[in-house]
């Protein structure tokens, strides 16, 4: 580990100030009434209608998005690495498109497609599908949208992980040990991508918990939307909610790290 010389301390201090001062101010504001400390604002949140539902929905969406995006991207990335390494730039560009297309435009596109349901598909079985993916209890359409939005981050994380291991040799070694292709992927490659999978999950989780635009415009109410909805009512509570959402995200990230982090071998490849 590098030693911390005065310059590094200075930069670290500045960064800490930049992040911690607003956070600290928010916390102080949310617990300070006149001249005494009270956690009233926080306890009121828990009682407010929709807190549990929206948080649960956000977590479910996050879990589903992580599962979907990893199920698609892991086999794809490994196959790309083994079969067509020259296509990597193409895939990289495709995967970074969601960063270029603004979420507003993305939502506009999704809304248009969703409108095809009643307009063109009303007489076909697809109509039921269109309705089902917009079920407010669990809007599959949001999972699909988030999976696309998470692509750039997931791709970067997986790509870095795959570059750190010699995938072709590992697969061939596993195959010569009698493993078929699926076993080679599951038993020889995936365990060595644990760090990358964890990173991809982190980024996706953070993205989904904080996403507002798409969910709001499509009319769903996960945690981020709920926060904005209720924060109009009362200044102190809105700040308390923001602080709380930050804490929730942190706790989730820590939980994910703990779940995947029996870090015996992730230290070095």
């Amino acid at each position, binding site marked *: 580990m590098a030693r911390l010389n005065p310059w590094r301390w200075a930069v670290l201090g500045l960064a800490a100030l930049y992040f911690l001062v607003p956070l600290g101010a928010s916390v102080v504001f949310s617990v300070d009434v006149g001249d005494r400390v009270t956690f009233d604002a926080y306890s009121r949140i828990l009682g407010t209608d929709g807190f549990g539902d929206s948080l649960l929905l956000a977590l479910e969406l996050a879990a589903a998005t992580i599962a979907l995006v990893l199920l698609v991207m892991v086999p794809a990335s490994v196959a790309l690495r083994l079969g067509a390494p020259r296509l990597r730039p193409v895939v990289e560009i495709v995967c970074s498109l969601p960063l270029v297309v603004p979420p507003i435009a993305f939502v506009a596109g999704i809304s248009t497609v969703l409108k095809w349901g009643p307009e063109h598909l009303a007489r076909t079985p697809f109509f039921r599908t269109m309705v089902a993916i917009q079920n407010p209890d669990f809007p599959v359409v949001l999972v699909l949208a988030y999976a696309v939005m998470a692509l750039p981050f997931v791709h970067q994380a997986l790509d870095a992980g795959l570059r750190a291991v010699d995938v072709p040799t590992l697969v*061939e070694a*596993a*195959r*010569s*040990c009698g493993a078929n292709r699926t076993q080679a992927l599951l038993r020889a490659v995936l*365990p060595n991508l644990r760090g990358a999978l964890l990173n991809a999950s982190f980024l996706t989780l953070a993205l989904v918990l904080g996403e507002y635009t798409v969910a709001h415009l499509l009319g769903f109410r996960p945690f981020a939307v709920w926060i904005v909805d209720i924060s109009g009512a009362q200044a102190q509570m809105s700040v308390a909610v923001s602080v709380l959402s930050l804490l929730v995200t942190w706790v989730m990230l820590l939980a994910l790290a703990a779940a995947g982090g029996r870090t015996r071998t992730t230290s070095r490849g």
Partner: protein
Amino acid sequence: MTVTTTEKATAEKAASVEFRGLRRQFGTTTALDGLDLAVQPGEFLALLGPSGCGKTTALRMLAGFEHPDSGEVLVDGEDVTRVPAHRRDAGMVFQSYSLFPHLDAVGNVAFGLRMRGVRTTERRTRATELLELVGLADKGRRFPHQLSGGQQQRIALARALALRPRVLLLDEPLSALDAKVRLTLREEIRRLQQELGITTLFVTHDQEEALSLADRVAVMHAGRLEQCAAPAELYGRPATAFVAEFVGTMSRIPGRFTDGLVEVLGRRLPVDGPPPSAADVDVLVRPEAVGVRADAGSGARVAATAFLGAATRVTVRLADGTEVKADLPTHEAAALGAGTEVSVSLPDRPVLVADRGR
């Protein structure tokens, strides 16, 4: 170290291997151009050749990682060309370190048994047994990044042997190691191969490795087999000019072929092998066969000397500019400094010839 009875069992099912007319093109380059080669059961065969000669491609075809455009691969007379890699029953050791980084040594060796669904206790026993065989019984709990390169390759060897394969494939397993380790591991591989009696193919570009290890050496060039013979024969009676120059050191001395004899360095010597087609030929000589002694006025001079230990390699530039290499006992070579005028002689034996400039 002793070999357990279960290990001995592999010897009984040692397989023969045969390549028949293997061809393979990658784009415009031809990796294999009709390779025919047969390996006897229990034989240690080295595939030797310069890089790009197709030796690794041939090995990978036997492992099932490459597929020929035409031709077939036979193991024990059975065509395995279409059999997928994981059912080939071939253990392989790779050039790069190929241990699974997330598994310890025992886990790595037991990997194949796990794929076969062998029970945990049984495969642990077997893995420990194999680690003992490669002399790393005490390193079972270590992870690959805690082991040296030589140790990693030993474990890779144990892993390749774990499933009692019918053939063992070694793809330049020593080339990433430093010189000392390479030597000891080389002997280790030979010892294991002889104890287990397993049919082994060993790919290398290092002729010394091939000659010292293998029962027979197959020299490949441009996707074809040049010669497959025992090391001594390969060295003493190379079938082609390519083999002659690739295996060991050879000097080419211009000569003239007339009336069934070659005129070279002022002597007329018989030809070893078929007579050449043209009159202008190159005579191929090994450095140890060349005699050199001080001889003022001969026109040939010592260009350089290199101390090799017991012998010294003297490079002589003949009057016509040809360079000839000769190995002399160091005490004899001491008198021959650079610039000394010398004469060069050949023994009274039939000589190998090649057409001038190939």
